Each structure stands twice: as structure tokens, then as C-alpha cells.
């Protein structure tokens, strides 16, 4: 089977920054120290009112073509776009992006709707396209503007989520990062759908009155906003992710000692540390880089990889286990061999 490699990653963060200080001013019982120490986030970037996932995706991709010159736009033969906050119901944002990025008209393009597991699933698709000979250079763009559907009185979600876009180049030849994508383990459990949901915007709620909800902790949201049942999501990850990590190691005939770094979807530092202890991963091997941007949904893993590569923290030959999990519920993991 033809191998697939992640050769480069670039990302884009919107200009506007919301600090813990400004959140603490709005929610006086939410202290700066507490936000930082519990969730591990100092600030998050928020898309401008006239900035959407397509715009952010274009910026991330343009940065990739500037930073990585081994492949040009005309070499891209497939564009995958992952978002849950598309510009429109239709057309497909990936089609708009083909035009805005100036990619060839012979490029295949499609959107897929996944959240925090999106990057992993994007890699499964890219690898499949390459293995089947359909494509040689797949541009995988992930972009989210969750801020646009978070209620302004929902201090929990406003503290956790930030907007971002990332562009990942997956190719059939080893270059740049040259990280081979090894075997995957995936999982789905749609019984958790209600625990992380935006009801408005789809057809089911199209003609409904807007409903308002206040949870037992005072977080407010309407049926047009993001609603997250934190405890249920926490229990879902606690229950499923340790097994996912073990199964992924087994699938690749590797042991925990063979892994040089673990990069999990950067949900929040608190939950990640709980998982780290549960799986018994060394602190040094467990990468956390979310303090400057928050939980950016399907771009968190790419941001960590890009930052580690900038700092030369991933050596050639390193095995890096990456895992994404969240809304759906949907989860998946693989190992990258640099």
C-alpha cells in the first residue's frame, strides 16, 4: 500500500484576543487565576464579526504555501475541509475554497462535519485517497468559529473555546515533516449526541421557537447556541480514551515506551491531566499547548505539532501518538512516525 506522510502544517488564529482578565470582568466569580489553573488557558482568539471559517481556512492554507514551497497550489489534487460552522448550509465550503485558493479545477473537494475528532478522521480520508491512487497531495483544512454560536452568558464555553484554522499537507512522498501516518483506531457512539449540540441551523429546528436553557451552574444558552453537558463529556472521555490509546498501540505493534510524545485533542488542561494520569503517561511526553489559543476544536492537534516542529521538539524517527475525541460522540487515534 502506498504510504502517506504529513509534510507540513500551518495554522491561523484570528486577531481578536479575549484574555482571562476580560472574562473575569464580565463574570466576577470567575477569577483569572482559577480559569488559568483549572483549564490551562490564558487567552483565546475570536473571529471578527465578518470573518468566517472559509476566510480563516484561506489564511491557514496561504500560510502553508508560503512556509512550504516543495508543493505548489497546482499540485493539490484533493481538498478536504472539516468544519461544523460552515459559511452556508450549501454550497460546500471546500468548493468555495478551491476558487479562493486558486487550486486547479481538476481538484476534488468536499466538506465533512466533525468536531474534536475531525483531524484524525481527515487523516483517514487523506490516507485512503492516497492509498487508492485517487490523489497524491491532499490539503486538509480544519476551521471553526464556535464563538459565533456560544451564548455570551455561557462563561464555561466562552472560557474553553477559541477560533482557529489549520492547513495540513498530506502527500504520497516523504518531505518536510515527513511524518508517516501509521494505523488508526476509530470509534463512534451517537447515543451521546445530545450532550454536545447546536440545535438551531439544521432542518429539525428550522421552524421552532427559540428555547432558552440555564444549567444548574448558571450557564445560559438557547437552542441556537452550543450546549455542552460538561460532566457527561468528561465521563465519555474518561471511559473511552484510555482504551483507545491502548488499542492504537496494539494496532501498530508498539508499546507505551515506544511513544516519544502523546498529543491529545486539547480539550482543557484539567481533563487532559486526568486522562494522562489514568493512562500513566509521563508528564514530559504529554504535550499541552493551548494556553495561548484555547480549545480550537478540530485544529488543536495540528497547532501542537506545528509548535513542536518550530521548536525542534520532535526528532526524526520519533513516534507520536495523536488522539481526537468529542462531539458525536466520535473518537479516533493514530501514530505518526517522523
Amino acid at each position, binding site marked *: 500500500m502506498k504510504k502517506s506522510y504529513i509534510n507540513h502544517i500551518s495554522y491561523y488564529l484570528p486577531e481578536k484576543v479575549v484574555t482571562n482578565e476580560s472574562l473575569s470582568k464580565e463574570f466576577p*466569580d*470567575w*477569577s483569572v*487565576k*482559577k480559569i488559568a*489553573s*483549572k*483549564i490551562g488557558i490564558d487567552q483565546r482568539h475570536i473571529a471578527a464579526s465578518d470573518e468566517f471559517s472559509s476566510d480563516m481556512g484561506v489564511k491557514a492554507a496561504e500560510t502553508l504555501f508560503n512556509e512550504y514551497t516543495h508543493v505548489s497550489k497546482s499540485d493539490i489534487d484533493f481538498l478536504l475541509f472539516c468544519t461544523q460552522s460552515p459559511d452556508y448550509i450549501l454550497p460546500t465550503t471546500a468548493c468555495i475554497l478551491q476558487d479562493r485558493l486558486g487550486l486547479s479545477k481538476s481538484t476534488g473537494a468536499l466538506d465533512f462535519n466533525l468536531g474534536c475528532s475531525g483531524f484524525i478522521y481527515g487523516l483517514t480520508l487523506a490516507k485512503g485517497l492516497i492509498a487508492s491512487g485517487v490523489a497524491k497531495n491532499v490539503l486538509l483544512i480544519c476551521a471553526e468559529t464556535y464563538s459565533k454560536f456560544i451564548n455570551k452568558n455561557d462563561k*464555561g464555553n466562552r472560557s474553553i473555546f477559541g477560533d482557529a484554522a489549520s492547513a495540513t499537507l498530506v502527500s504520497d512522498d516523504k518531505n518536510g515533516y515527513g511524518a508517516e501516518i501509521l494505523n488508526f483506531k476509530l470509534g463512534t457512539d451517537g447515543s451521546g449526541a445530545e450532550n454536545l449540540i447546536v440545535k438551531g441551523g439544521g432542518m429539525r429546528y428550522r421552524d421552532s421557537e427559540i428555547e432558552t436553557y440555564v*444549567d*444548574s*451552574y*448558571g*450557564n445560559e444558552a438557547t437552542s441556537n447556541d452550543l450546549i455542552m*453537558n*460538561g*460532566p*457527561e463529556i*468528561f*465521563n465519555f472521555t*474518561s*471511559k473511552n480514551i484510555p482504551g483507545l490509546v491502548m488499542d492504537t498501540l496494539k494496532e501498530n505493534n508498539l508499546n507505551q515506551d515506544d511513544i516519544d510524545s502523546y498529543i491529545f485533542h486539547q480539550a482543557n488542561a*484539567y*481533563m487532559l491531566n*486526568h486522562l494522562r*494520569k*489514568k493512562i500513566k503517561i509521563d508528564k514530559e511526553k504529554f504535550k499541552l499547548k493551548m494556553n495561548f489559543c484555547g480549545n480550537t476544536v478540530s485544529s488543536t492537534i495540528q497547532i501542537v505539532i506545528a509548535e513542536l516542529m518550530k521548536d525542534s521538539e520532535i526528532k526524526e524517527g520519533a513516534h507520536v501518538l495523536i488522539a481526537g475525541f468529542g462531539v458525536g460522540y466520535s473518537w479516533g487515534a493514530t501514530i505518526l512516525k517522523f
Partner: protein
Amino acid sequence: MKSLQKFTELFAEQFDESEDVVFEPTTIFKDIDEWDSMIALSIIAMVDDEFDKTINGDIIKNANTIEELYNKVIE
């Protein structure tokens, strides 16, 4: 199984800014100013770590005192 006293101590450890609160089994925890969704998550994590038991949000929602919660944990 850890005692109610130990559970109360572990429960209190999840609070960072409530030095003035005396944590007793009869304490109505939702009345503590610092109580919020993040502390609730810490309690769920603590119960998972220390008691190897998964409790959901409803169990916390339906308990008033630390002792009531403890009784659900050891059920």
C-alpha cells in the same frame, strides 16, 4: 472503601478559594460561593481516581450534602 471523613477531605481539596468554609459531611455544597461546573468536574474526576467509580452530572445535581453524595458514590 474510603470513609466519609476521607471523602469529605478529598471533596474539600477540590476547592481553591474557600479557605473560610468548614467542610463537614452535612455541608450543603451548592451553597459554597466557589461551587461551579469546574468544581463539579473535579469531584467527578476525584471519585473516578479515588473510588474507581463513575458518577454522572445528575447524581451531583440531586445531592445536597457531601454525605448524600458519598452515599451515592459507595452505593
